[in-house]
């Protein structure tokens, strides 16, 4: 095939081009996230019926499962970006990997807290050292480790490489989190959504959940674009294109 795709990717990898590209897409991603999120919340909190076993407590699922899925999805994305950063030394890949970590940590934290708030009325405990819960906690520590290691170096790019290495090693935890409910006897229930078969949920409850999962994807894109733009400004402070932005934004 033609070589315009690699050329386009190469151009997109340059900080000023990506800055403009992300700036153009960011508001759209955020709008879609808010719109889909609002629809999902209305469907989940108002339209969906109460569960026959868990009553209304199950409604935590509409934020718990999307957050849990994002905690793993973002880790995988961070791992891929970290790999690209280590192999090809692309500055933008470092930025994407390192700015994904706080977003992933936020979703992992939400997963643990909402899970705890769901566990108390259903299991009678806030926390248990169950395989699913423990591996998710390890995921949070991996995110915090990546963030901490990145900031531990004076030279940002050196820090990014060290943290990228840790991020890649930590990928092993993602399948452990995902399959923990099958591999071990856990208090945590099994998967509700089945991509390749019948999901164990009625459509009234399933569509708000799937909509929220889509909304959180767009949220991740919006947040990543916002963070990457800021990081590029901080990294490229000496360059002309950043000076121009600084000067332009000083004018009211």
């Amino acid at each position: 095939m033609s070589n315009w795709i690699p050329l386009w990717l190469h151009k997109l990898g340059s900080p000023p081009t990506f800055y403009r590209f992300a700036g153009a897409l960011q508001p759209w991603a955020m709008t879609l996230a808010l719109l889909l999120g609002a629809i999902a919340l209305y469907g989940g909190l108002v339209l969906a019926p109460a569960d026959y076993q868990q009553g209304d407590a199950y409604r935590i699922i509409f934020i718990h499962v999307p957050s849990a899925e994002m905690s793993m999805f973002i880790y995988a994305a961070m791992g891929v970006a970290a790999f690209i950063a280590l192999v090809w030394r692309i500055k933008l890949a470092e930025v994407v990997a390192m700015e994904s970590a706080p977003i992933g940590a936020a979703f992992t934290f939400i997963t643990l807290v909402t899970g705890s708030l769901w566990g108390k009325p259903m299991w009678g405990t806030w926390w248990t050292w169950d395989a699913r819960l423990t591996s998710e906690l390890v995921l949070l520590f991996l995110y915090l480790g990546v963030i901490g290691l990145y900031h531990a170096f004076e030279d940002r790019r050196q820090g990014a490489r060290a943290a990228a290495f840790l991020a890649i090693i930590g990928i092993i935890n993602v399948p452990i989190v995902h399959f923990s409910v099958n591999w071990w006897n856990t208090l945590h229930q099994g998967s509700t959504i089945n991509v390749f078969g019948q999901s164990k949920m009625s459509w009234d409850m399933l569509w708000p959940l799937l909509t929220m999962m889509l909304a959180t994807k767009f949220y991740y894109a919006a947040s990543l674009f916002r963070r990457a733009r800021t990081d590029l400004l901080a990294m490229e402070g000496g360059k002309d294109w950043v000076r121009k932005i600084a000067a332009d934004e000083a004018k009211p």
Partner: protein
Amino acid sequence: MSAPQTFFTMGGYAAYVWPAYAVFFIVLIADTVAPRLRRRRVLRELRARLVRQQARQDRAGSNSIPTPPSP
């Protein structure tokens, strides 16, 4: 029970459901606000640096002491 009332009481689970949603929104709002504040700080520091550089250049230019020609 009327519909809005069941919505707020969450069938008796309000003490668990609403804090869960509160955490979700508070954490994501913090994640949205933090980079905006950082962006503002980064640009402000950069402008301050540019102003200092400019001042240094102006001082060097206005001094009547002839500077040795640069190689």
